[in-house]
C-alpha cells in the first residue's frame, strides 16, 4: 500500500483501488513505453497503455486524470491479448488493470460513448449465458442488434452460416439453469456494493 503518511483528498485514489483489486502498483511503471509499442490497437486508442498507467500514477493528486482514464476509449479497445504484460520489464499485469478500470467505469457509468457497440456485444453475450447457461449465437446477435441498433449488420453472413450448418436456430441449454440464475444474481448484487 502507499505509505500512509500523506492523506488522500477523496478517499483512496484510483491507483490505490487498482492496487487493492489487482495487486498491481502503478508506481512501479517507469514509463518505458514498451507496452504501447507492442499493443496491436494502440494506434486506435485515445491513451495508449503506457499513458493510462501514467494517468493512474498522477490520479491521486489530479482527480481529472482519473476521469480521463475511466472515460477513455482505451479501456474498451483493450483486447487483453497479454502482449504488454508479457513484455513489461516491471512485470505489471496491465490487462488486469484494464479490467479493473472497466469495472469502475461501468459502476460509475463513465463508459466512453465510442465503446457503445463493444459493451452492447458483451452485455448481449452475458444475457445469453444467463438465460441458457451457454452462448446461443443466434440469440446473442439479435440481442446485440437490439442494443446497438445495427439491424442490417452481417445480413449476408446469416444465410451462408445457416447453409453450412454453423447457425443453430434453437439454443442448447444447461440443465441447472436456476443455479446459473443464482450465480448471476449474486455477482450483480456484489457489483452494486463496490465503489
Amino acid at each position: 500500500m502507499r505509505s500512509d503518511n500523506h492523506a488522500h483528498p477523496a478517499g483512496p485514489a484510483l491507483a490505490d483501488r487498482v492496487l487493492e483489486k489487482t495487486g498491481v502498483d502503478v508506481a512501479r511503471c517507469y514509463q518505458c513505453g514498451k507496452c504501447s509499442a507492442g499493443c496491436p490497437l494502440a494506434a486506435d486508442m485515445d491513451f495508449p497503455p503506457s499513458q493510462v498507467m501514467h494517468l493512474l500514477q498522477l490520479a491521486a493528486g489530479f482527480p481529472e486524470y482519473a476521469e480521463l482514464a475511466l472515460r477513455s476509449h482505451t479501456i474498451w479497445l483493450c483486447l487483453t491479448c497479454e502482449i504488454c504484460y508479457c513484455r513489461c520489464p516491471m512485470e505489471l499485469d496491465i490487462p488486469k488493470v484494464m479490467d479493473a478500470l472497466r469495472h469502475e467505469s461501468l459502476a460509475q457509468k463513465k463508459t466512453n460513448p465510442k465503446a457503445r457497440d463493444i459493451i452492447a456485444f458483451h452485455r448481449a453475450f452475458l444475457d445469453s449465458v444467463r438465460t441458457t447457461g451457454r452462448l446461443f449465437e443466434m440469440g446473442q446477435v439479435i440481442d446485440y442488434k437490439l442494443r446497438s441498433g445495427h439491424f442490417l449488420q452481417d445480413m449476408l453472413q446469416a444465410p451462408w452460416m445457416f447453409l453450412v450448418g454453423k447457425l443453430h436456430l434453437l439454443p442448447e441449454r444447461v440443465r441447472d439453469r436456476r443455479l446459473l440464475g443464482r450465480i448471476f444474481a449474486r455477482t450483480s448484487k456484489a457489483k452494486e456494493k463496490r465503489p
Partner: protein
Amino acid sequence: MKTGFYPGCSMKGSAREYSESLLAVAAALGRDLPEVPDWNCCGATAAHNLDPDLALALPARILAAAEKEGMDEVLVPCAACYSRLSVTRHELLADEALRRRISGLVEADFRGSARVLNIIEWLAAIPGLEGMVKAPFARRVACYYGCLLVRPAGVVNFDRPEEPQSMDLLMKKIGAEPLDWAFKTECCGAGFSVSRTDLVAKLSGLILEDAVARGAEAVIVACPMCHLNLDMRRPNIERRAGKKYHIPVIYITQALGLAMGLPAKKLGLQRHKVAVKFPAANSAAKDI
C-alpha cells in the same frame, strides 16, 4: 488418468467443424472424450470485461463439475476458454479466501485438482502420431498460436510466449513444412468480430499478409475465434486491404485428420468460408 472434454459454446455453433474434426481424430486415435457434465459457458471476454466475480464463477463451476466427475485433466480446445479456465484455476489456488468465496458463489467446492489442457498439449501427448500418417500433409504452413494459448506465461506455462514451436513440431510430425513467420502470437482481433469488425479486418489482415508473403499455403489455428476472424471475416479483410487472400485457414485437428486419411466431409472442411484447396501438383494428396 481420466481426461475430460470441455467443448465450449462456439464448438457447438460457428466452430462446428473444429468439434467434428476433433471428435473424428479422437475416434481414429481410439481416445474417448467424455464431456464435462452439464457444462456452462466460461464467460470468455465478456465476463472478465464486465464483472470480476462472474469471470471467476463461471469457469469455477465448470472445473468443479469436472472434479466431481473424477477427471484428472480437462481438454479445452478453444484458446479463450482454455485461458479463462487456466486463469481462474491459477487465481483460486493462489488465494484461499477467494477460492472459498467463489466456491460458495457457485455452490460447488472448487479444489483445482483437474489440470487444464490445450489442444496441442493433448495431441503432443499421444505417442506414435507419426505412425498414423497415411497422406503426409506436405504443405508450407504458417502455424498461428494467437494470444491466449501461450500468454500470460506465468499462468498457462505452455511453450514460449515469443516464437512458440509446439504446433510447428506437431505439423512437422504429419509431414508439413512449418514456416518461420512473424505473426505467430499477434492478436487477430478476438471478441471484436461482431462489435468492431473493422479492427478485426485490420489485425487479421496483417496476419494473412505476412503468412502469404512468406509463401504459406495454409494457416493452421487452434482457436475458434481466430478461425472465425481469419476465415469468416475474409470478405471484410479483403475489402479493407483492397486485395484477395486465397490462403485457407484450417484447424490443427483438420490438418491431422487429413494426414490420417480421414474424409474431408467428416472433418467439416465444407463449412469454411475460404475453400480448402491447394494449388496443383506439389503434394501427393489429391485435390480436395
